[in-house]
């Protein structure tokens, strides 16, 4: 049951890691330009849901459809290519390459897609300006603050103009002020490019930046919109 106009949908996802069932029949759908918060207690399977949706992890059962294509039928190379070109990612920490400068980090996805260094860095810089981190362009991630680092990560996630941005606890390592600034810039940027955002978080104030909320409990998802 794919809701009309959805960009990315998942149906009846199951995923078992050894003895633990991470997902047990989870559903999901998101429209272009929509920000959907995925909430739920720790260990409820929300990160696993994000990993499945993004084609990082293969579900044991269930279907994922992105833009009419079945993700579950794709091979690793096709999934990687999809992630490179259509998806963007922001994680809680440890995602920036410590040796590269912030600018080079932001340019990295473009370069992985085969862009020339100059072109990639030019585009990267506009995104850094947009996320107000152009002042750390030549610094290494270790020399930037946590909030700056996360914004660099957001810029990197958006630099390829992805159609879906996956953000897994993007503010998890930040204080509330920095966290909110990151969320504001992230959602503004995503809305301006009509990118859908899958936002995994356990902070309600972060979730408040979303349009809609999904709660994952014991591996099952619940669309809160339908309750109200």
């Amino acid at each position, binding site marked *: 049951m794919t809701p009309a106009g959805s960009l990315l949908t998942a149906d009846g996802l199951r995923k078992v890691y050894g003895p633990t069932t991470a997902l047990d029949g989870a559903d999901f759908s998101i429209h272009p330009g929509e920000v959907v918060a995925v909430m739920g207690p*720790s*260990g409820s399977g929300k*990160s696993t849901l994000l*990993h499945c949706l*993004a084609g*990082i*992890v293969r579900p044991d059962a269930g279907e994922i459809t992105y833009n009419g294509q079945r993700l579950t039928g794709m091979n690793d*190379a096709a999934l*990687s*290519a*999809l*992630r*490179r*070109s259509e*998806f*963007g*990612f922001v*994680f*809680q*920490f*440890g*995602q*920036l*390459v*410590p*040796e*590269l400068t912030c600018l*080079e980090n932001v340019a*990295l*996805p473009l*370069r*992985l897609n085969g862009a020339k*260094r100059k072109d990639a860095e030019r585009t990267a810089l506009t995104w850094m300006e947009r996320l107000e981190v152009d002042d750390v362009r030549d610094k*290494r991630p*270790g*020399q930037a603050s946590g909030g700056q680092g996360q914004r660099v990560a957001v810029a*990197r*996630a958006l630099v390829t103009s992805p159609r879906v941005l*996956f953000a*897994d606890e993007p503010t998890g390592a930040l204080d509330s002020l920095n966290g909110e600034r990151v969320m504001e810039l992230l959602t503004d940027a995503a809305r301006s490019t009509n990118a859908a955002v899958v936002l995994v978080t356990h902070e309600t104030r972060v979730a408040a930046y979303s349009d809609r909320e999904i709660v994952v409990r014991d591996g099952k998802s619940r669309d809160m919109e339908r309750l109200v």
Partner: protein
Amino acid sequence: MSTTRTKPAPPVGTDPRPGPTGPTGARAWLRDLGMGIRFAVGGGREGWVRTILTAVGVGLGVALLLGAASVPDLLANRDDRSIARTPAAAMSGKQTQRGDSTLLVVDTRTDYRDSEISGLMMRADGDHPALPPGVGTMPEAGEMLISPALRDLMNSSGGKLLKERFADYRITGTIGDAGLMSPKELFYYLGSDSLSKADGAHRVASFGFDQPAEPLDPLLVVLVVLICVVLLTPVLIFIGTAVRFGGDRRDQRLAALRLVGADRRAVRRIAAGEALFGALLGLVLGAVFFLGARQLIGVVDIWKVSAFPSDMTPLPGLAVLIMLAVPVSSVLVTLISLRAVAIEPLGVVRSTTARKRRLWWRLLLPAAGLLILLSQDQVTRTGGEDVEVYTIAAGATLTLVGLATLMPWLVEAAVARLRGGPVPWQLATRRLQLSSGTAARAVSGITVAVAGAVALQMLFASMHSEFNTTTDQDPRRAQLNVHSPRASGALAQRMIDDFRAVQGVKGVNGRVSSYVVKPGKLKSTDDMRPTTELSVGSCATLRELARVGSCKDGDAFVVHSGDRELDKWVDQTARPGQKVDLNSESWGDFEVKARGKHAPWTLPKSTRTISSRPDPVGDHYYGIYVTPGAIDVAKLADASTEALVQTDPKVPDAEEYVRNAATHIDPLIDVYTIRMIERDKQYASVQKGLQAGAIATMLLIAASMLVSTLEQLRERKRLLAALTAFGTRRSSMAWSVLWQTAVPVVLGLGLAITGGLALGVVMCRMVEKPVSDWLVFLPLCAAGAALVAVVTLLSLPALWRMMRPDGLRTE
């Protein structure tokens, strides 16, 4: 990774009890070292992995050092046994009176494919002959004693022909270890009842002799010192790296200790304790590895090197030195490596703005080394003084060690300028820009080994090529020279007949030959007495050497080669109707005293002069040629029977068939392959040894590079998983791992080859030899490439594992 922290948090609260930093001095040292050891043991799986890595690394190094420390003893023992079995007369030249214990001995040796087999033929004069060591009873006529390795070779599937060669002899026993230089030595004793002095035998009363202590050849000393430096410096560097294995994780653990109140010095001492434990365990492992290798070297033989385990005994002094130096240096290396790191309670702070490495003092070492070498006079084998030898060794050592110290600067300077390039390249170079120290240190080991190997090989190559150019014989033709000290026409004929029948023989030319001179007084004492070769052989043999026309037994000929100078020289002696002297020694020369009786013989008047044609080997014969009917072979003094055999290179083992045929005729016949085998073999083994050493070093270094690569991958599990998430191809990451290894290795090899060539040129100049081979480094480059490939390939499984999305799961 490097984190920037402003200040360490002040300790919270005060503990009334004395904290962990209470005592000072030796007691603090002891306590903290002990604590470090406890961490090394009790650090859980992680701690053990680190300790074991260090211990194995140090152990390998220690085993090599112990091996090196055993070499002097090993060589001395081999020499001792070699001397002990040498017939006593062979070295003194004195006559031994025949007695109950005396015996006649003669060297008989043979080659089998690429193995040399040495042996003695013995005949007892009395009932109680002296015996060489390792021999229980004198072999009777037709009996043979052989070494175990020779027995194995003869019984192996590849030894059939060798067995046939000695089919006339009954193997009655085995030579004991005391009579062998190494367990894999091929050696035999033959018994005889007909051996006589005429066969070239010596009479001896005993085996072994007192050898006067001979000073080492100065050139050899230089070589030995260099080889030690080349092979052992990387081992030391490797031990240094092994002690640092897992350092990053350890630093984080230590930071936790700082949080509970350990001070900076205490933390360093604890780290030293951990390293010390790893090193001590390494010593134990090293001893185990060494003992294992010691047993192994008696069984296997790699590159023709084998030794009795009992010979492999490290010099006690050196062993003690190793046992002390390794733990002490492990502590020192740890303390030095911690200098650049501040372990604070909240984490590890690496000095991110590391001091730029300075070039000048690094250049000082190799420059000083080369200058010392250039300022030395050429070393001649006889005139070298000890002082010079050590100066040269010091110069070479300085150069090599200097190259190693140059390495970190070179890597830093080279990668600092690298910008852009494809993503994997960028990742690799950036990584190296941030921390090139580890890679550079590991590679500097390669640098020393390769530079040394290049220089030494150049030296050996030029010495070798000089041997090549001074020899008249052309080694390109597979050719056997069969020689018997007995002069006999019948023997010559038998050789010709038997060898012709041998599989794979294309041509045989057999004759008895000697040198004859023109008798009488010379015009001036400075003149050379006209001499020419006189050969006795059949008309059939002659036809192969010259255009004869008619020939019957009793004829004699003068053979001209077509070279006018040579022909004139021949004609001075060979004058038909005039006398020649068949005992050339009876006339002496301007330097040589005359010896023995004259043996005049008249060259018949009817002697014709004919011109030669190429013999089976392609040479032109010139001199006097006499058929057996015209001369009594017995009158020829110092004659020998000789056959030149040309074999078909396409028939494998043709040479072995000839040797077998020869041994069946007479075991004392010497079959000599004109190929300069001795020198070729010696050179090849030196070259092989050097390359093997350099490659073994590279393997060690590869191991340490692999460990640090794996460590680094493990540390970046999360980052790698994140990179996978946004679609990074595995191949991109694999390439970055490859470049990260390749860049320092290529730089190191480049430096090593440049430095090695420079050192080689200087050393060739010192021994006054031209450089003959500039490309000796090519195999080492190939080995370097293989090293990069191996390290990359072996880290791929870990990389794949790290690139799985599991790394993203933080819960």
